[in-house]
C-alpha cells in the first residue's frame, strides 16, 4: 500500500477554507463554508476506507483487492443529508433576504438589552429619593413624618421625576383593595 499525500492535503485545504468562510457574517459565505466542510468530511470518511481498489460486491474483483464498500455507503448517506440541509439553508437565506433585506447572521436583541442593563444595589439607593412609604422603618424621616412640608416637597420631586418613567423598578402601585 502506497500512502497518498493528495487526499490529506485536499481535505486539510477544504477544512481550512470552510472554517474561514463559516466565520463570516454573510450567510451566503456561511453556506459555502458549510458545503466545503461537508465535502472535506465526506472525503475524510471515504479515505478512511483505505486505498482504492476494484469494484466491490458485484464479483468481478478478488475480495482482497476490493474497495471498502461500507465507507462508500456511509458517504452516500452523508452526501444526501448534506445536500438536503444545504437546500434548506439556501431557502432560509432567501427568506431572510426577503424579510429584512439582509443576509447576515442576526443579533439577539434581547440578549443585548439584558447586557446593557445597569445593576442597582439595594444599599446604594438613597432613602431620600424613595417615597416615604417605601423607606425602611428605621429611616430618620419616618420617625417625625408629621412635618408635612418635608413630605410634600419630597412627593413633588418624586411625582415630577417618575411621572414619565414607565418602569416598575421605580415603585409599585398600591396593593390594597385592588377593586375586585
Amino acid at each position, binding site marked *: 500500500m502506497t500512502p497518498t499525500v493528495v487526499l490529506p492535503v485536499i481535505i486539510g485545504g477544504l477544512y481550512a477554507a470552510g472554517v474561514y468562510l*463559516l466565520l463570516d457574517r454573510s*450567510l451566503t459565505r*456561511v453556506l459555502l463554508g*458549510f458545503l466545503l*466542510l*461537508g465535502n472535506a*468530511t465526506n472525503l*475524510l*470518511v471515504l*479515505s*478512511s*476506507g483505505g486505498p482504492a481498489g476494484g469494484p466491490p460486491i458485484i464479483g468481478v474483483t478478488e475480495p482482497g483487492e476490493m474497495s471498502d464498500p*461500507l*465507507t462508500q455507503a*456511509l458517504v452516500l*448517506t*452523508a452526501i444526501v*443529508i448534506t445536500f*438536503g*440541509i444545504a437546500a*434548506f*439553508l439556501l431557502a*432560509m*437565506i432567501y*427568506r*431572510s433576504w426577503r*424579510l*429584512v433585506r439582509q443576509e447576515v*447572521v*442576526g443579533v*439577539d436583541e*434581547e*440578549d443585548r438589552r*439584558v447586557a446593557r*442593563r445597569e445593576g442597582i444595589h439595594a444599599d446604594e439607593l438613597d432613602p431620600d429619593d424613595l417615597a416615604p*412609604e417605601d423607606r425602611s422603618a428605621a429611616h430618620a424621616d419616618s420617625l417625625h413624618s408629621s412635618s*408635612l412640608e418635608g*413630605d410634600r416637597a419630597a*412627593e*413633588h420631586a*418624586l*411625582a*415630577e*421625576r*417618575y*411621572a*414619565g*418613567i*414607565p*418602569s*416598575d423598578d421605580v415603585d*409599585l*402601585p*398600591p*396593593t*390594597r*383593595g*385592588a*377593586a*375586585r
Partner: protein
Amino acid sequence: MISVLTPLPVLLPLLGAAGALLVGRHPWTQRTLSILVLSAVLTVSVLLLLLADAGGAAAISVGGWPVPLGIVLVVDRLSALMLVVATTVGLGVLVFAVGQGSADGDEETPLSIFHPTFLVLMAGVANAFLAGDLFNLYVGFEILLTASYVLLTLGGSAPRIRAGITYIVVSLMSSLIFLAAIGLVYAATGTVNMAQLAGRLAELPAGIQVLLQSMLLIAFAIKAAIFPLSAWLPDSYPTAPAPVTAVFAGLLTKVGVYAIIRTQTLLFPTGALDDVLMWAALATMLIGILGAIAQTDIRRILSFTLVSHIGYMVFGIALATAAGLAGAIFYVVHHIAIQTTLFLVAGLVERQGGSTAIDRLGGLAKASPLLAVLFFVPAMNLAGIPPFSGFIGKLGLLQAGVQGGGWLPLTLVAAGAVTSLLTLLAVSRVWTRAFWRPPTQSPVLDTDQAAADEAGPDLVPEPVGAPASGDGATGGDGRLPNGATAADDAGSRAAARRAAWARHTAVATASTPPADQMGDPRVEPPLRPLPSVMVASTAAMVAVTVALTALAGPLYEIADRAAEDLRGRGPYLEAVFGDVGETP
C-alpha cells in the same frame, strides 16, 4: 416479542408522518392520527421497558444482515427508559399543540406541516436512543435535527429565521464534527458497530483514544448545550412556538446527554476525560444559572436553567460510578418532564398575559389561580424543594459526589447546592413578578374613586373623595396643583404614579385594551379564556412530574439497574453478539 417491538418506535412515527402528510387537508383527521400514533408508540415503549427490565438487553439486526455488518437496534434498560419518557412528553406536547391549533386556527403553519414534522422528530429521537452503531446514531441525530430545523422556523417570521439560522449553523457544525469522528473511528478500528468498538477501541494507543473520544464528546456537547458550547441555546429556543420550544427543551439536549452516557460507558470506560467533564459540568451549572438570573423573560430564564441543569447530568456521568450514573439517569428523566412542563406553562402565561417578559406581567395568580398552581408546582420541583423529584435527583447526585471523594467532586457538590439555590431565586423572581405582584392591567386606575379605593387608607390619609387626582391620572405628567391640601397632593402623586403605571402596562398586555379606552371603569379586562385542551394537557404534564415524585422509588431502582448494566457493559455486548439469530 421484543424483536418485533423494537423497530416500532422508529417505524410507527415515520409511517404516521407519511399518513399525516397525506391527510394534510383534513386537520382533525391529521390530529387524531398523530395522537393515535404517538399513543401506540408510548404503549410499545412501556412494553419494551417492562421486557428490558425483566429480561435484560436485546438486540435485533435490521434486514437480517449478520451483526458486525448490518444495522443493529439495541434495547437496554437505559434506552427503553429514555423512550418511555420521551414519548410521554412528546404526547403531552402534541395534545397541547392540538389545543393551541384548534384555538388559534393554523395561520402560523399554513401547510399543516407541524404534525408530520413532529412525528419525524419523534422517530429521530427514538432512532438515536435505539441505535446500536455510531452511524445509525448519526442518522438518528440528522433525522431529529432536520425536523427541528423545520419546527423552529415554522411560519418563517423574521425573528424565527434569525434564531433558526444560528441554531442550524451550530447544529451543522456538531453534525460535521460527529461525522468526521465516525470517519476517524472507522479508519482506526474498521467498524462503527458500538459493541464491536467497545472491544477494538481499547486496543488503540491512548493518544488516539483520547482524540476520538474528545471529538465525539465535542459533537455531543454541542447538542447537549454544555458550556462553553451552550451559547446557541438561549439564543434560538425562546422564539419558537410554545409547544416546539417545550419539546426541544425537554428532548433534544437530553439526546445529546444520552449519547454522552453511551460514549463514556460503552466506548471509553477508561475515564480519560472525566476531569474535563467535571470542569465542564461546574462551568455549565454556574454560568447557566447566573445567566438565568440576569434575564427578564420567562422563556429565556427557562432556557438558561435548562443549560444550567445539564451540568448536573454531566456531573453524574463524569463521576463514572454506578451511583453517579444512576443519579444522572434519574435526573435526565426528571428534567425532560419538568423542563417540557415549564415551557408549556410559559406558553399558557403568554396567552393569558400577552407577554412572557416578567417586567410586563403581573397579577396572574389572581387572574388565573389554576395557572399559578400549574407554574408553582413544577417551578419548585425544578428548584429541588424537598418532596419533589428534583430534590431526589439532586440528592442522589450530591450523595454520589460525596462518595466519590476528592476535592473536585466535592467542589461540584458545593456548586450543585449553590446552583439549586440560585434556581430557586430565578423561578421565585418569575413567581413574585408575574404571579404575585398586583395586576398591571387594571383599567380601574383611571378614576378618582378607583384611585382612592386602590390606594387604601394608608396611602391617602383623608377619607375617600379627594378631588384632585383626576388630572394627574389622565395627564400623567406630574402636574401638581400648588394650593392643594396635603391629602390632594398625596392623591395626585399616587395618581400620577398609577397613570404612568397604567400607560406602561397598557402597551404591555396585548389582550387588554388600553386603560383610556375602557368605557366603564368597573368592567374587568376581557381576559382571553385559556383553551381547555391546552390547560388539560399542561395539567397532565404537571401530574406526570408529580407522579415522578410518587414513583421515585421504582424509577430510581430502574436507574440503578441501568447504571449497573452500563458500568458492567456485559449485558449490552451479550445482547448484540448473542441474539444475532433473531430477525424480524
